[in-house]
């Protein structure tokens, strides 16, 4: 009976309209990514002759081969991997410990600390004072600049704190009676029961670190320490990377395996986004829940 009712509801014109609108939006959202994919696999002779390349008419790996043969790509990839792994560890340790402590309503000074933290979401010293402080800390041309000054996302910290507030106090009381101290409680009780929640935020931080670009732009001039996003910008936007010149040389030499520059650029995008695409299914499974819990007001 109920089945029949919902079945009936689905056919209304209203629903059809909703599906059509969302369908069109979905195509607009995804077409650019589809475009990236087909161009990255396009063969030079096919794409350079076609007036409008919108179907995957050819299949070729040359662009990818060129990228995988570029030492600078691997270097940038390695820097980003390092920054992501170490950065997530750093961010999670200080955010989780801090958020847990700040969730303790009885702690003297807690409200003051929370207010001071919230203020930073709306007011900051601006680029120059930040630059000078970070420079004085010796972080210019230091990989740590992409890990430490970027280490806390205030919004995540607040959401984590709100989440810890929802864990019943009773869980901790019994452990306390057994003589466990607060650090042991955090490590042995709180973190294990909040594992999926913690994983979501670790992934948020991971995506942030993987996409890290701003701190590198300001503080890193040594190309050996440049992360992937800086390399990508050179390939995609300013077009003055070693890859671009390799493609140019191939074209000029009239080599048999020519690579179309846009194919090369789009292939670089695909390769750099693979890690994000790998974690995305896990990420999207939990983020809605994470935000929902975090948005509960005290």
């Amino acid at each position, binding site marked *: 009976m109920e089945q029949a009712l919902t079945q009936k509801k689905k056919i209304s014109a209203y629903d059809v309209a909703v599906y059509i609108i969302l369908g069109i939006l979905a195509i607009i959202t995804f077409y650019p990514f589809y475009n990236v994919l087909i161009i990255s696999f396009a063969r030079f002779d096919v794409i350079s002759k076609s007036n409008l390349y919108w179907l995957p008419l050819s299949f070729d790996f040359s662009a990818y081969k060129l990228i995988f043969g570029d030492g600078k790509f691997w270097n940038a990839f390695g820097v980003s991997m390092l920054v992501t792994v170490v950065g997530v560890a750093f961010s999670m340790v200080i955010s989780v410990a801090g958020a847990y402590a700040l969730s303790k309503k009885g702690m003297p000074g807690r409200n003051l600390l929370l207010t001071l933290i919230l203020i930073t*979401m709306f007011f900051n010293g601006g680029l120059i004072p930040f630059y000078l402080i970070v420079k004085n800390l010796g972080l210019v041309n230091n990989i740590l600049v992409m890990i430490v000054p970027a280490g806390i996302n205030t919004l995540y910290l607040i959401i984590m704190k709100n989440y810890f507030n929802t864990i019943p106090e009773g869980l901790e009381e019994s452990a306390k009676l057994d003589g466990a101290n607060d650090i042991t409680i955090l490590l042995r009780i709180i973190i294990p029961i909040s594992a999926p929640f913690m994983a979501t935020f670790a992934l948020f931080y991971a995506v942030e670190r993987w*996409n890290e670009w701003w701190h590198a732009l300001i503080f890193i001039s040594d190309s050996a320490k440049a992360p992937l996003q800086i390399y990508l910008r050179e390939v995609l936007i300013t077009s003055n990377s070693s890859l671009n010149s390799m493609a140019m040389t191939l074209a000029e030499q009239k080599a048999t395996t020519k690579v179309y520059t846009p194919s090369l650029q789009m292939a670089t995008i695909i390769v750099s986004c693979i890690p994000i695409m790998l974690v995305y299914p896990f990420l999207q499974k939990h983020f809605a829940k994470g935000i929902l819990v975090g948005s509960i007001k005290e």
Partner: protein
Amino acid sequence: MKRNNKAGGRSSKSGLWNTMRQYKYHYLMVLPVIVWYILFSYLPMYGITLSFKTFDFSKGILGSPWVGFQHFREISHDPEFWSAFKNTVIISLSKLVIHFPLPIILAMVMNEFSRTKARKFFQTLFTFPHFISWVVLAGILTNIFSNDGVYIQLMTMLGFDASSPLVSVQGFRPMIYLSHVWKEIGWDSIIYMAALTGINPELYEAAEMDGASRLQRLRYIAWPGIKSTVAILFILTIGNLLSLGSSFEQIFNLYSSPVYSVADTIDTYVYRTTFTVGADFGYMTAVGLIKSAISLVLLVLANMTVKKMGEQGLY
């Protein structure tokens, strides 16, 4: 030590001290966070004093000589600042007007699905671009709108004389608004979706029994259910309005010299003049301070407005 300081009020003081001792491990846990905020937020805030100084590399922030309001007087006559200021305000306000309602509408539309699977599917699609960096998204857009990109090829086939909107003075700002919607609409709608799923389903059932139309249900059940969330996010958005407008990563990766006149915002202006032209640090700090001060005023105003409308404010 603290305990023996004063004879008067001793009991309450030692009471506080005892409470604090109970939380000694918690203080230890929060210590790295405190140090981090001091280093990367509060010391730079102190550095704002540079706005009233002329920066001398050998003397640092503390030792540089004071110049009073000289930088601010100079800024008021600086045409490049005013151009950046104007662009920041226009782009910020347009983004607010164009983008802010869209995630709310999207969430309400998606909430109309009786099947959570369809909802989940669309949510997954629309949220994806949020996790891709502006460097990459700008690379994708630059490709689509380049001379051998899909957009111009299609327009030429249809017989139009097209050029890239990214390098045209009329086209650049709309591209900024559209690409912002593209990247963030799905992500921004999640919080409204969460609020909508929190509404008691009995309300919908009761309304249906009373013969309420779907639009009436949106108007009288869904909207009141998310109004307070909208209010809070409105304040937060206004508080970050100028940063939204100058969204450095977006504009810096999309703009080029032909469109500086409509695209240069306070953030890109500060970056360019500091690191490529080499302007006085004190002067550029003052420019940054003006932006922060305006943001703060906007935050306070938005909070007042929302409270006047009977919603709960941020503070």
